[in-house]
């Protein structure tokens, strides 16, 4: 038995149920919110340590042997993702205390947040493809409810697009799982990987691969079906946006990494070539969309799309170094992107708007906030010595080594345009003088010193993580390298789950 594999799923589920039990007590829900996510972070670190020691940590639910029951599998990639889930969950829970209003809290913000974290952790840890579908749905249902909490017009409009596209993607995923079961007669991912190699009709497998690619591509907000993301992510409260920005699309990316290294590694020329095109176009459209925007959170939302492209590029190149870059990029991106959203929330509370044209003078009034913004912003653009530099450097070097010059040029160009976007936010929000004529009317809601520090605490923590990754690049690179080595060795995964085959 290895309880640490199940605990990252069970703790948020239990915490969610407990907060439901204390439906009327906001204080208890807040306490459980922080304590539950702290416990999640703790167990995720336990899981990471034990995965590092053992390679794979496996638990067969209910004691059913591997291909028959549902298996929970943690390899290094899963463990990294779960640790990041813990970090983001904890940071957002602390940030929620001063920012989530009474109305949201009484309508079940905290239970939904726990449910979302449970779904995300479950998706990272399951070794069963149908179970993956179930966790996706758990996560989606919680995210739907979080997205419309508050019930403003923009939220409804965003939610309709978000719900429709994500349901469509789930249906494609479910159809693909059904067809896969019809072809191979198994749902355990390790068993699927073993049997896929024995199928003679490769075209059927390719069709299935593309169905999975479309489905996970929608969830990861990859080109061309990304438009639900910028339509929805700027509408809910900032804490919710930050949670979504950090975790939701990355579950889609994780699923792509898992499925296209473990199962569909037969016709790499075909599937991974499509992925490479998708990656390049995702980067470009995302960053160009951001360049056209003048709303703080919309710019950041479009940047999520463009950064997804980098992660997919790592997968699509499918060389050891590229996968290292992809994993490193996910690791860096989740922290940085969540942090940027949290900062946009602080600016909103101080100035009362998200519109860049009406903002200004933040640096003069709150210089610390300016510095805290610069750390993740420059990291996102890939300025050394912050974490984004190493992530981009590894990916670009991998693409040059693989001989894909076009994608190298695109990646460099997108990096430059990201810097442009970040400079735009810096100049408009922090640097330029506050627009005087309308400035008098614009005032954020009054903010006590204690609340301000509670909002800044997670931001400082995440900025610290970014700097730490930047200064200890080698440490994280080694972890990413070990995880990429595991991804490129599907046989190791199969043997670990099913036991050594004769």
């Amino acid at each position, binding site marked *: 038995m290895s309880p640490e594999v199940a605990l990252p799923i069970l703790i948020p589920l239990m915490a969610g149920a407990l907060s439901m039990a204390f439906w009327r007590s906001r204080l208890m829900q807040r306490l459980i919110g922080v304590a539950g996510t702290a416990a999640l972070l703790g167990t995720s670190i336990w899981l990471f340590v034990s995965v590092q020691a053992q390679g794979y940590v496996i638990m067969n639910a209910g004691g059913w042997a591997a291909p028959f029951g549902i298996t929970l599998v943690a390899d290094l990639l899963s463990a990294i993702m779960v640790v990041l889930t813990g970090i983001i969950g904890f940071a957002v829970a602390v940030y929620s205390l001063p920012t989530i209003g009474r109305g949201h809290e009484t309508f079940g913000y905290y239970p939904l947040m726990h449910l979302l974290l449970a779904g995300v952790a479950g998706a990272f840890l399951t070794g069963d493809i149908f179970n993956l579908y179930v966790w996706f749905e758990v996560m989606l249902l919680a995210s*739907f409810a979080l997205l419309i909490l508050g019930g403003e017009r923009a939220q409804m409009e965003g939610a309709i697009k978000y719900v429709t596209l994500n349901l*469509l993607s789930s*249906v494609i995923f479910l159809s693909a799982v*059904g*067809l896969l*079961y019809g072809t191979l007669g198994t749902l355990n991912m390790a068993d699927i990987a073993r049997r896929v190699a024995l199928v003679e009709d490769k075209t059927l497998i390719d069709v299935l691969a593309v169905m999975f690619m479309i489905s996970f591509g929608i969830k990861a907000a990859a080109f061309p079906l990304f438009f639900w993301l910028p*339509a929805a992510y700027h*509408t809910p409260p900032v804490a919710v946006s930050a949670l979504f920005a950090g975790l939701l699309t990355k579950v889609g990316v994780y699923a792509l990494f898992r499925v296209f290294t473990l199962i569909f590694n037969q016709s790499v020329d075909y599937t991974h070539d499509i992925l490479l095109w998708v990656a390049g176009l995702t980067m470009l459209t995302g960053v160009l969309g951001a360049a*056209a925007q003048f709303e703080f959170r919309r710019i950041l939302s479009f940047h999520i799309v463009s950064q997804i492209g980098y992660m997919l590029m790592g997968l699509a190149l499918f060389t050891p170094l590229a996968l290292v870059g992809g994993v490193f990029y996910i690791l860096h991106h989740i922290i940085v992107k969540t942090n940027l959203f949290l900062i946009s929330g602080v600016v909103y509370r101080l100035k009362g708007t998200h519109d860049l044209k009406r903002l200004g003078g933040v640096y003069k009034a709150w210089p610390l906030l300016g510095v805290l913004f610069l750390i993740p912003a420059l990291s996102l653009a890939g300025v050394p010595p912050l974490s984004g530099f190493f992530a981009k450097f590894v990916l670009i070097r991998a693409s040059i080594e693989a001989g894909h010059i076009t994608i190298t040029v695109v990646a460099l160009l997108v990096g430059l345009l990201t810097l442009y976007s970040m400079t735009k936010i810096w100049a408009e929000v922090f640097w330029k003088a506050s627009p005087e004529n309308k400035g008098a009317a614009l005032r954020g809601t009054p903010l006590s010193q204690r609340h301000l520090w509670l909002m800044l605490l997670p931001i400082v923590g995440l900025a610290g993580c970014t700097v730490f990754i930047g200064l200890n690049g080698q440490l994280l690179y080694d972890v990413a390298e070990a995880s990429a080595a595991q991804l490129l060795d599907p046989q190791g995964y199969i043997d670990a789950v099913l036991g050594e085959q004769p």
Partner: protein
Amino acid sequence: MEPIMAVVIGVIYAAAIYMMLRRSIVKLVIGLILISNAANLLIFATAGMTRDAPPLIPMNGDPLGDVIADPLPQALVLTAIVIAFGVLSFAVVLIRRACQIVGVDDLDQMKENDT
């Protein structure tokens, strides 16, 4: 049986996608309901349909020789139905609220978030 099912499933998928491409959000939800049912039927059909045989091995029966239905697709479909029910009831409430707030049943009027 399977060819008929294949045609039926194909028609439901087509109908669902047609409905989802309409401008009315009520029709959009009808399309979502249809497409999730089509996916359930698809799982059922691809896993091999066995008529008149419950997924149980009879007492003193031969586990390998007797014809028994595969229980797994049934479990999958059951799970998928429950999930689809939950999600679709959310979607119905969502469109009701959206209709109340926006005041029209027309996706073309819901472009405030687009740029």
